[in-house]
């Protein structure tokens, strides 16, 4: 067991290395000279040279990458070209809104999608199944920002039930905090619900065709118990793993959602940085998001071992 955890941990190292390499190469090939930006307009060539040397910009690719990666591991993601603040500081500031949005989306999605998938599978081919699966195709097809505008128009502008946009930290009151997250989280959960519900349905169908389900029926077990105890447990693995894989979609969606709802999170940070060509910030955010994704999936893989007694490593 410990051996498996160690091996699984080691497996994430090359993945993270590739991510880091990709992110670093961006800066390497990016047009413009960070030294020139830092030094300012009036810098002399000598000053520029000094700054370049201090940043290690005069060195070849490999040592530069090694140094950058070493700093990144220690939490030093460089300095924003635009505001001269450390990137890690900027990122830490922006985490709470994004994390709140994603966690709420995750909760809504799982709570809605799993029962939808189970019920659809239980009524395979029936009208409920068709209705749910048509809704799922729609969920896939409506881009996050379209759903976002639709919800904001309906519930904020027309009905006035919820604020149109913005973010308040939870310290300012729970409702102030939650009310601004509900619409973005709903918008973001559309595609995610569709994804999870479809996988949940097909996993349930696979499980429901198994012999042990017939055995349970032959024992006189009630339908609901078969669905939610005998079958859902066995379908958990693919469902949990799609939840992990879907986090990538969730992150992509969060970038857009934050733009629509004016939430000052990591997504907004990276979009603003992009418009200003603030490469260290872009790099930092991409790195943080990607590592989050890798770590979430690592955690899920490790959780499998608890879910399935057959997995013994």
């Amino acid at each position: 067991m410990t051996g498996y955890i160690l091996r699984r941990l080691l497996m994430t190292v090359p993945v993270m290395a590739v991510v880091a390499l990709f992110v670093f190469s961006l800066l390497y090939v990016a047009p413009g000279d960070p030294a020139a930006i830092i030094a300012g307009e009036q810098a002399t060539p000598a000053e520029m040279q000094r700054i370049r040397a201090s940043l290690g910009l005069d060195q070849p690719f490999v040592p530069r990458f090694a140094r950058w990666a070493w700093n990144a591991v220690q939490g030093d993601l460089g300095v924003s070209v635009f505001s001269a603040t450390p990137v890690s500081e900027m990122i830490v500031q922006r985490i709470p809104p994004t994390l709140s949005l994603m966690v709420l989306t995750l909760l809504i999605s799982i709570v809605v999608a799993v029962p939808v998938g189970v019920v659809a599978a239980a009524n395979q081919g029936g009208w409920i199944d068709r209705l749910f699966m048509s809704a799922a195709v729609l969920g896939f097809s409506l881009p996050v920002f379209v759903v976002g505008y639709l919800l904001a128009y309906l519930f904020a502008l027309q009905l006035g039930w919820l604020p149109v946009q913005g973010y308040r930290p939870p310290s300012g009151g729970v409702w102030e905090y939650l009310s601004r997250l509900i619409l973005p989280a709903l918008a973001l959960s559309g595609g995610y619900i569709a994804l999870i519900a479809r996988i949940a349905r097909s996993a349930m169908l696979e499980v429901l065709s198994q012999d042990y389900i017939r055995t349970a029926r032959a024992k006189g077990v009630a339908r609901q118990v078969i669905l939610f105890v005998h079958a859902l447990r066995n379908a958990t693995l693919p469902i949990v793993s799609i939840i992990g894989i879907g986090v990538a979609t969730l992150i992509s969606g969060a970038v857009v959602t934050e733009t629509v709802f004016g939430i000052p999170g990591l997504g907004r940070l990276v979009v603003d940085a992009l418009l200003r060509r603030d490469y260290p910030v872009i790099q930092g955010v991409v790195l943080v998001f990607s590592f989050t994704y890798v770590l979430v999936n690592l955690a899920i893989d490790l959780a499998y071992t608890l879910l399935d007694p057959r997995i013994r490593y």
Partner: protein
Amino acid sequence: MTATAPDGEGFAIAPDLPPLIAEPPRRGRVATFVRRHPTIVLGAALLGLMVLIAVCAPWLGTGDPQALSPAKRIRAPSAEFWFGTDSLGRDVYSRVIYGARTSLLVGIVVALAATVAGVAVGLVSGFVRWLDPIVMRVIDGLMAIPSVLIAIALLGIARGSVVNVIVAITLAEFPRVARLVRGVVLSLREQPYVDAALACGSGGGRIMLRHILPNALDPIIVQATYIGASAVIAEAVLSFIGVGTPPTVPSWGNIMAEGRALWQVKPYIVFFPAVFLCITVLGVNLLGDGLRDMLDPRVAKRA
């Protein structure tokens, strides 16, 4: 119960039992196809409609999508401007209709490019054993970066243009195909007929073309369709956040981006391109679902 046979030999004949379930009526081939694969038909129809709109854009009552008329800024939809005008006085209807060209172009080109790149990388990875672990780690790494962020990162170093958008989205999408193709190659490589072909002296390239690719074709087609849908969305997203196609090339994403500032007061600027975008993506997704059900009988049995 005992009946006498017509030839009078005294055989006992079992009674005929009436049918329990009525036999389904026989239908023609087209009717059968429509009945079995309604999603393909609906998806293809929606997509076909959009292609038609894109191709016929100049003849659909459109004007110049770039023409500015500062005097007629921010007009609501009317007989003159069907979808209204934007903050620069451009005709939103013309821009949305011409925008179909951008979106479909990006969708189709990315689907093709990502498929070609993915198939190439997947085949090499599947066949060249020493390369496989290296290629797969790179693919894993790329797939660990959320696709919009890959595109954002790439567009950070190259200005937004249709070509750059296509390249950026393709790079984000091709790993899926590469994974898929490699998986098929690995499972097929163990098949007796591939062994037999090898034993008969067929070269690797020949085996790929004659034996592996035809078998991988169905899932690749389905995947390519889904990638097309993702690409249309991705283009819209990138243009929406301001790093995609430049405003000189109307696309549904950048029309919406321009309408963003005004959306609370003039929602129609955002609304019309959104409807077209959704219909297109829906059509492609339906087509993909239908193809998957048709090409993968294991799934079809359940769906």
